[in-house]
């Protein structure tokens, strides 16, 4: 078995340049606090593992910064060792893997995997820790911390897959809800077109048909054109013209006034012959009167007989006045007749226009025809100078006019649009607006239907993909769960088996150190319900399965921790020679320390022990134990006299 001959340390921790001569045996190294004992332990650990556990896992500490001597650089730092069987020298520097001879490789690899160094801090951590922390301390001793990291990685991978699957399932539910919210029976384009065409027809745009939604713009434009370019409607226009004619009338007020004036004057008018004779007489009488006035004669101009001129002039004046009255009436009658003729002329023209409008509008009526006949007859009678007849005709015209006016009022009311109804043009514009709105709505419906369809297809596609993904993730999760659960079970069972295997050695070592002190069976148990949890149990004066901290002193607990470590070494390190104990018994009392010293050399005397202590008494106990067990020849007892920053520890053989 490969053994350590010599350890040489340069520029490492508190050591400047020192060596420990193992000579394939053991070393007990005594020295006060801060003299560099632990630096040699760190050097051994660094040699085998490339690390120093006390410089790891604590923020602010690192091997790179705190491994080299304070006056040295990482490049200066190195630890080397001479080995026998095979005889090789190994040197390890900071930051670089050592150049390991092939023959030495198994030894170095084994040293890297085994726990053979125990520091007091580990004892404290182990005994006083919570179950999980104790497990971690145990895991360090076993070297099982990598198992925990693996277990954690397996668990996190499983949890990640489970999260992912739950997320996908939630997304699936969301998609199902969104699919349910989409209209089930979204109309297709053909149905939308049919609906739109039906509605267009209802609005009076049946001639406009959408064959496809590509026709939308064309149909929209056609409807707009229909509104802006008003198409001629002869019937409507004729009715409009008739209405205008009816509202304009036939000049009925002037006709009625002219008829009234004429009929008022006519009865007093004599015949036309009488009226002519009276005017002739008037002219004669006027001339006679004027003669008498001008000549002031008292003789008759015709017979030259004497006349009573004054009385004659008076009679003449009176008679002229009477005849002038008649003349004035005649003038009024003539004007009335002329006016009536003019009005009748105008009325005749209007009646003809009205007749044309009636004919164009396709309306026939009797009132207008009767009026026209009466007016024609009136005109004839007036032309014939037959006042009595014309007066009779005027009466017939007045009656016909009254009937016509009645008919006209009714016709105007019938032809005029209802007060509540909108003009036809407005109705059409409104219909066009409705049609345009309909087209817009159809376009929107089509777009919405297309969007709904696309959304449905997209969601359905995503749903299908998710279904497939979930099925795959379930399979992946099963694999992850199987891996994690299997690893967790195997690890716990194996570690528990280790604990069980330790039990006999642990009990034997502890019994040796504490004979007759009331303790019972010792055990370490994995808690299967928890990942990485170890409970320590010990009987005490008949009470079983108690936490040792309940009854043990600090010294008892430290020695319990030491026993556990030694049981580990005994159980797992096989023929690995090196066992390093760094100041592990300060809290243990003197009698028990003696027992520890004996136990070490009795049980592990065949190992290369490297034991450090600041306790001079225990140093002597260890020397005595060497003698008692016959190990004094192969053990070097060294002491560190002093330490300085520039020179490091001064090591010499103990006296």
């Amino acid at each position, binding site marked *: 078995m490969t053994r350590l001959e010599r350890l040489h340390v340069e520029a490492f921790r508190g050591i400047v340049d020192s060596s420990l001569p193992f000579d394939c045996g053991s070393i007990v190294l005594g020295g006060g606090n801060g003299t560099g004992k632990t630096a040699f332990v760190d050097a051994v650990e660094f040699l085998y593992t490339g690390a120093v556990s006390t410089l790891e896992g604590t923020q602010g500490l690192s091997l790179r910064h705190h491994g080299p001597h304070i006056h040295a650089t990482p490049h200066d730092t190195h630890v080397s060792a001479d080995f026998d069987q095979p005889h090789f020298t190994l040197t390890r520097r900071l930051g670089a893997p050592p150049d390991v001879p092939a023959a030495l490789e198994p030894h170095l690899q084994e040293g890297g995997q085994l726990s053979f160094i125990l520091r007091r801090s580990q004892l404290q951590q182990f005994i006083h820790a919570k179950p999980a922390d104790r497990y971690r301390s145990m895991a360090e001793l076993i070297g099982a911390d*990598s*198992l925990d990291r693996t277990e954690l990685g397996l668990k996190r*991978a499983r949890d990640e897959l489970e999260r992912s699957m739950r997320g996908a399932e939630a997304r699936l539910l969301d998609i199902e809800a969104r699919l349910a919210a989409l209209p089930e029976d979204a109309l297709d384009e053909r149905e939308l077109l049919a609906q739109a065409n039906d509605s267009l027809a209802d609005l009076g745009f049946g001639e406009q048909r959408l064959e496809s939604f590509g026709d939308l713009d064309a149909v929209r434009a056609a409807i707009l054109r229909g509104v802006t370019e008003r198409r001629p409607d002869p019937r409507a226009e004729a009715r409009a013209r008739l209405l205008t004619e009816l509202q304009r009338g036939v000049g009925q007020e002037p006709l009625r006034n002219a008829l009234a004036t004429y009929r008022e004057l006519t009865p007093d008018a004599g015949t036309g012959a009488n009226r002519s004779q009276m005017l002739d007489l008037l002219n004669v009488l006027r001339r006679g009167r004027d003669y008498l006035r001008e000549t002031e004669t008292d003789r008759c101009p015709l017979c030259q007989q004497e006349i009573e001129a004054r009385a004659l002039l008076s009679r003449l004046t009176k008679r002229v006045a009477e005849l002038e009255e008649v003349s004035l009436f005649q003038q009024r009658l003539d004007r009335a007749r002329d006016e009536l003729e003019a009005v009748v002329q105008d009325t005749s023209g209007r009646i003809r226009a009205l007749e044309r409008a009636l004919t164009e509008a396709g309306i026939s009526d009797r009132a207008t025809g009767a009026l026209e006949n009466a007016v024609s007859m009136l005109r004839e009678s007036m032309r014939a100078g037959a006042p009595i007849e014309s007066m009779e005709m005027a009466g017939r015209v007045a009656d016909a006019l009254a009937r016509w006016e009645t008919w006209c009022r009714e016709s105007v009311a019938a032809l005029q649009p209802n007060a509540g109804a909108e003009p036809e043009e407005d109705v059409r514009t409104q219909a066009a607006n409705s049609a345009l709105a309909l087209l817009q709505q159809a376009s929107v419906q089509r777009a919405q239907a297309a969007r709904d369809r696309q959304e449905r297809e997209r969601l359905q596609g995503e749903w299908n993909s998710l279904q497939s993904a979930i099925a795959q993730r379930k399979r992946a999760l099963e694999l992850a769960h199987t*891996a994690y659960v299997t690893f967790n079970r195997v690890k716990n069972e*194996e570690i528990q088996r280790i604990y069980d295997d330790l039990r006999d050695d642990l009990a034997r070592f502890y019994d040796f150190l504490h004979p007759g002190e009331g303790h019972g069976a010792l055990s370490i148990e994995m808690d299967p319900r928890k990942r990485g949890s170890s409970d320590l149990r010990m009987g005490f004066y008949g009470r079983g399965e108690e936490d040792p901290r309940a009854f043990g002193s600090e010294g008892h607990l430290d020695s319990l921790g030491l026993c556990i470590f030694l049981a580990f070494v005994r159980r797992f390190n096989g023929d690995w020679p090196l066992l390093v104990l760094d100041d592990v018994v300060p809290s243990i009392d003197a009698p028990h320390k003696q027992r520890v010293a004996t136990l070490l050399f009795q049980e592990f005397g065949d190992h290369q022990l490297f034991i450090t202590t600041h306790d001079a008494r225990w140093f002597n106990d260890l020397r005595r134990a060497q003698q008692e067990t016959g190990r004094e020849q192969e053990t070097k007892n060294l002491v560190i006299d002093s330490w300085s920053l520039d020179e490091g520890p001064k090591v010499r053989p103990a006296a």
Partner: protein
Amino acid sequence: METAISCRIYERFLRELEDAGPKGRRLAEELGRLYREDRIRHEQSLVDLYERLAESEA
């Protein structure tokens, strides 16, 4: 740092997976490969591995 104990536990873990049938054998092979490549603690590598195996099962 792997120890003799941890090596033994990994070996038993992979063996038990192998013994669980064809799926387990494939899983053990792939996890063994990750272990040798020192990626068995890497969560994403594990997730990728499980997903790949699940996909190949489909």
